[in-house]
């Protein structure tokens, strides 16, 4: 084995010390009827052979296209300092800081992460991390049920479909109900959460609502009337969960400002690579009043016996290793290294840099909107957006496929992820970020124009 230290002589010494004559003898406790067949796996490869194999496999992915694809995972510029620092073995080969005396590095970085995320969300308490935006949202929804002793949440249809499906999976397990709030059809609020429908759903006193879950920006990129939604939720005794995108919080109203009780979202845009879906960063934040019900690790500031400032995991009585079946969640391993990446990213960008990232994305998106409209693909919905929006393209899926042939990844044909919805059948969800260039936008516009005009194939 290339990575183990033991020589033949070491093994012999250890066997002799144990008092057995073979390694096989160490496995005597496995009943013979349960001994397995040999592992039928490919033979070992040297590091040099393996590196070629991996490079070849990675090369089979196409990441060279001009991309306008977002839909819950976003391309951003990551300063070089982020990965350089993340590769410190002292960070990435440590585990959960169970021994605080020799884990102050990890503990202080988590405390700083919690603090920065509290600033972004405008809330008080931030968990050390969850798996991703979808599971953080599901945990937020479960929190509302525990806090209110009610068994039903309302989730806007404009929340990311994967998040909605994850909530359904988690809620089926817990025998709780998650019902959908429909979207407005037509008019200036087309595609946003239907407030009148929400009011009707909340009025059903036989099935009181624990929490209302709405995303801002929504999956379709639209800005939602969060303050009004929060007021409606609170008027019926429900908690309000905002699903957020962290870069947008540099410029958009915060959950704290519009009265959300809990915020959930994915921190991937903060310096974490796309990596085909993970590892990402589940953000979960809440108001002070809910601190004892938030799942996941929390780090607090304290002192040591010499009076020095120090950090430690705290309020551990919520966690599975202490409370077992009564824990707030079963979460143990989290996404700490991704939270560290997000912290370093925020430190490198600073408040003005992060605002620039958000605002530049918005500027590029406006440019994109104009280019696509000129090419014959107008926006589908009229409401305000930040940097992601839908356009109407007849036969969106096949246009999308043909544009790949032209080197352009034209966002997401929404029907691929939300099938069977006539109002979205022709929708392409596209986004721009600070790394989208005017030249890329022009190339997309020109190629789309040719496709829609039935021009050069």
């Amino acid at each position, binding site marked *: 084995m290339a990575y183990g230290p033991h020589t033949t002589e070491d093994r012999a010494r250890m066997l002799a010390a144990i008092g057995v004559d073979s390694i096989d003898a160490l496995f005597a406790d496995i009943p013979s009827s349960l001994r397995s067949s040999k592992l039928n796996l490919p033979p070992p490869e040297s590091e040099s052979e393996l590196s070629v194999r991996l490079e070849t*496999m990675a090369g089979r992915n196409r990441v060279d296209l001009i991309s306008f694809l977002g839909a819950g995972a976003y391309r951003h510029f990551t300063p070089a300092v982020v990965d350089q620092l993340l590769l410190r073995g002292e960070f990435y080969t440590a585990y959960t800081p169970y021994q605080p005396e020799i884990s102050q590095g990890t503990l202080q970085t988590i405390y700083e992460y919690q603090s920065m995320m509290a600033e972004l969300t405008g809330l008080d308490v931030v968990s050390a991390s969850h798996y991703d935006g979808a599971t953080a949202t599901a945990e937020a929804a479960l929190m509302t049920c525990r806090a209110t002793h009610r068994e039903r949440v309302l989730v806007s249809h404009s929340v990311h479909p994967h998040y909605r499906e994850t909530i359904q*999976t988690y809620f089926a397990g817990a025998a709780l109900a998650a019902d959908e709030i429909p979207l407005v059809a037509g008019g200036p609020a087309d595609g946003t959460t239907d407030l009148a429908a929400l009011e009707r759903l909340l009025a059903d006193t036989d099935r009181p609502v624990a929490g209302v879950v709405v995303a801002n920006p929504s999956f379709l990129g639209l800005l939602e009337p969060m303050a009004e939604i929060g007021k409606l939720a609170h008027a019926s005794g429900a908690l309000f969960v905002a699903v957020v995108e962290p870069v947008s919080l540099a410029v958009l109203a915060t959950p704290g400002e519009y009265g959300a009780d809990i915020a959930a979202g994915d921190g991937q845009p903060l310096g974490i690579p796309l990596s085909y879906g993970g590892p990402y960063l589940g953000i979960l934040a809440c108001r002070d009043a809910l601190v004892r019900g938030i799942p996941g690790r929390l780090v607090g500031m304290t002192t040591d016996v010499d009076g020095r400032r120090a950090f430690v995991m705290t309020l*551990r009585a919520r966690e599975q290793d202490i409370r077992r079946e009564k824990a707030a969640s079963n979460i143990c391993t989290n996404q700490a290294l991704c939270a560290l990446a997000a912290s370093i990213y925020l430190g490198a960008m600073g408040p003005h840099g992060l605002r620039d990232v958000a605002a530049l994305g918005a500027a590029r998106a406006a440019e994109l909107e104009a280019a696509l409209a000129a090419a014959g693909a107008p926006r589908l919905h009229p409401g305000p957006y930040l940097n992601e929006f839908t356009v109407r393209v007849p036969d969106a899926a096949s246009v999308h496929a043909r544009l790949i042939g032209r080197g352009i990844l034209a966002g997401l044909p929404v029907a691929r992820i939300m099938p069977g919805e006539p109002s979205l059948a022709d929708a392409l969800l596209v986004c721009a970020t600070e790394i989208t260039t005017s030249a890329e936008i022009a190339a997309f516009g020109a190629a789309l124009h040719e496709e829609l005009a039935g021009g050069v194939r």
Partner: protein
Amino acid sequence: MTVAGDRLGPTLFERSRPGRGGGKVPHPPKDALARIPGEYLRATGARLPEVSEPELTRHYVNLSQLNYAVDTGFYPLGSCTMKYNPKIDEWAARLNGFAALHPLAPDELAQGTLQLLWELEASLAEIGGMKAVTLQPAAGAQGELTGMLMVKAYHRHRGDTERTEVLVPDSSHGTNPATASMAGFKTVTIPSAADGGVDVQAFRAALGPRTAAIMITNPSTVGLFESRLCELLDAVHEVGALAYMDGANLNAIMGRFKPGEAGFDVMHINVHKTFSTPHGGGGPGAGPVGVGEKLLPFLPSPRVLREPDGRFRLEVPGERPDSIGRVRAFAGNTGVLVRAYAYIRAHGGLGLCEVSDDAVLAANYLKGRVADILDVPFARLCMHEFVASAATLKSATGIRTLDVAKRLIDYGFHPPTIYFPLTVEEALLIEPTETESLETLDAFVEALRCIVAEAHTDPDLLHSAPHDSPVRRLDETTAARQPNLRWRAMTGSQMPCPD
């Protein structure tokens, strides 16, 4: 409170000075946000730290140096498998073709990653003796939830809705009962037998028409192979329940025991323990779940499929109606799975078997030597880890496991897992892993020997340990009673004082 001890630096917030840092991206046009109505915009800016890149770098490098890590020393944290992870696995996950691939990229653009995932599923199924594997769960605990939701779906699908109980031994990981609760089951805790193994009679007494499943960790959390497994699995299946295996300790048994072949219906695998992926200060990991025939229809969606023409694709929404659905967004913690794939390819079948062999060899060697110093409650051969106890030491000297653990820090070692499993008094769960040299293991034994001697001659030295760490024992009570979980706002350009 001292703002900064001699080794702890200020927080990033305290380092902040207005006007420093940033400048990584171009400035946007002034009117970039003018098209968005004011009510949607943030009223006040986020008070994030403003630091220059050199300060930022020193901040994090200095913080990193306050950590103990596998890359700096021996980390025998039982149950967590803190072994050395080959650096090529880290390199592989960063290859641009893997790292820059969007999770919703059409299948035709993602053939490299889809092939890797498909092959990894097949390898893990082979290692676990399972019919199929889902790679979607983000961590072991989420794998458990995925597995138990499939158990629930299986019974419901058969119209068997009375099965509300899950049986777990009292030595189980806390995640097992917490998972059972999340999946809507009632946990029934079964005491362990005197030899540390499952008490089959006690299980038999609790098994019945209400039992949905048992959850068993094998090898167990005391590092023993469950020698009465056949009997237990038969009893479980006789009453129509399913058997879940917590695969946290799979690293002991590769090539020797395949849970699926033995009769387990479902298991999770902590790839960050058995295979590769450094633990990252708490994560990320990944928790693939293997299933036998019975649970196949209920696997989460989407699965990775190989078409007859050799191309790979993800299932489309609604393709497998009996699926429990998604347990997260997108395909999984793919970056972690790339590392696991690289590890498995580097080792091959024989190499993985050798990993387990060496892990078990090291644990038994260390156990034999530690038995001269501390109590070792279960005398028989162990698997990849073993439990020691300071119970005798405590009654002789008043020195507890906590004190021994803290003193180990002064000797340059990360302490083992302490006070777990709950079934052993003053427990230390010690897992040396296969990547530690004989010299390291011997040095650890010598440190323990010195500490036990100190317990008799100078107990105060242990009560007050550690002495040589960046900070000493912490006031955890105040931390919990008056939680300070975030830095409070800075005031102007003044360096703020913590309250």
